[in-house]
């Protein structure tokens, strides 16, 4: 049985920037334990010398000519922002005041 404890769920949720309720923590801990136990079988599928595949159709060094192409205007880029000011995205403070 894997160790997806409620505390680990809280930590992972905080890394994922998702607030979770106590009820969700309990629920996810149970569900994720079952899922992790099941997917952990991949560790038995392979022995050492198998190459990893990160992409199904290998392609490398995909370049294009270094020319300026049309892109969104500043106004368009900001048009869906929840808040903006002076042509920029506006957000709350990054650091706590205290």
């Amino acid at each position, binding site marked *: 049985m894997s160790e997806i404890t409620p505390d680990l769920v809280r930590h992972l949720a905080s*890394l994922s*920037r998702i607030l979770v309720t106590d009820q969700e923590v309990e629920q996810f801990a149970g569900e994720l334990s079952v899922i992790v136990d099941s*997917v952990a079988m991949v560790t038995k*599928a392979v022995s050492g010398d198998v190459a990893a595949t990160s*992409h*199904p159709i290998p392609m490398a060094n995909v370049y294009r000519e270094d020319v300026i192409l049309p892109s969104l205007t500043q106004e368009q880029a900001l048009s*869906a*922002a*929840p808040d903006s000011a002076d042509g920029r995205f506006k957000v709350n403070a990054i650091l*706590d005041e205290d």
Partner: protein
Amino acid sequence: MTDIIGASAATLAEMIITKNASSVEITSAFLDRMEKLNPKTNSYLHINRENSLEQAKNADKHLADGKPLSALHGVPIAVKDNLTTTDAPTTSGSKILEGWVPQYDATVVAKIRQAGMPILGKTNLDEFAMGSSTEFSAYGPSRNPWDLGRIPGGSGGGSSSAVSGHLAPLALGSDTGGSIRFPAAVTGSVGAKPTYGAVSRYGLIALASSLDQIGPVTNDVMDAALLQDIIAGHDPHDSTSLPNSLGSMTNAVREADVKGLRVGVVKQLSSDGFQDGVKERFEDTIEKLTAAGATIVEVDCPSFEYAVAAYYLILPAEASSNLAKFDSVRFGLRVMPEGNPTIERVMAATREHGFGPEVKRRIILGTYALSSGYYDAYYGSAQKVRTLIQQDLAKAFEVADVLLTPTAPTTAFKIGEKINDPLAMYLNDIATIPANLAGIPGMSVPNGLAKEDGLPSGVQILAPAMQDAQMYRVASIIEKLYVSEWGAPLISQAPDLEVL
């Protein structure tokens, strides 16, 4: 109007070009039906009435002016709501994007516009395409036109129910682990996932970038081929887009011939875990192909046993990073907690309110799989399984031109039946996932109704990477064998949605 509703996209294109019906007439007929019946199926999240009629008018003018026409000129189409459209909101089935109207069109959307195809509306999906039933859509589940109490498959259940219920002649879908093929199988329609990179992903809201692929959802194989030929091709906006053309799918369908065909049956995906009626239909397909002259061989793909496990590590890992962009800063929802919160607390509150349970589950799982100490064991092993699956397939394709499997383990299940059991839900994709992990093309074609419940079943055709034409060839052969038995495509046996 009855000759419009139910006609194939190819027939509608023919009606337009021969001036037996205008694009405006055809588009209006579908819009009227959508407005009447969408409350039953919840296929559409947005109906694009005014814009689509404007586009239809332009298509008619284009024809009158004698300009060059695409093979589906004037035929209206439905678009899955995870593809960006500048003339309609794009939510990806999530509250976090409610009301968002993108500033750019997805490449496939630009291509269907270029082809003169009016956009009827945006179809429902599981939130961010995470699911196989549409029950995880923030806007309620879509319903299967064969039985409104059952799921239409997912994540593309909006597109599959729209097409099989004739609320659109054809649609665009996206397939990360089976989201085009599974819905096609359970609604008696046709769905194709092209080779990875054959169709540009630019403007597709990414779920798992190394697995996602856009493809056609239709009522017959020729319509799928016509649509794939329109949307495929290199796109500089997508660095994983294939530089070369894969040829004409339409020609492959027209020239389909069973002569010399070698069909592989995957040992691991032909018996255990499949509903009896689905198994019986699959055996029937194999018998028909044998009788028609195909050679059948059994192929062994032992690593397929690990495919679902590898998928549910790779997908959440990629999704957890792809969905980091929903941060309340540039677009989408922003939820302000009380007081004077930091941006980090705003993000966490926004994501708590904006994401549904399955999305949270997968983001947390992905964060776990990528965390230090687990990365090599989980994500690393899953990537190695991907290699093993490719090796199994390469060996299988030495003795077979295509592989066949049942598309789905069961017919459409009831709404609510699997919603509280994530693991059971994940197993719906057992036969479709290997194609995404390996990047090969896969397609589902109807092969009849299961004996125990009278619901549609599908057969999946897998071909080697870049050999989409071979897949279409076999899909066309199978379709012909069945249509000659039934007298018409399976969809003509579906109940009348108006009286359901």
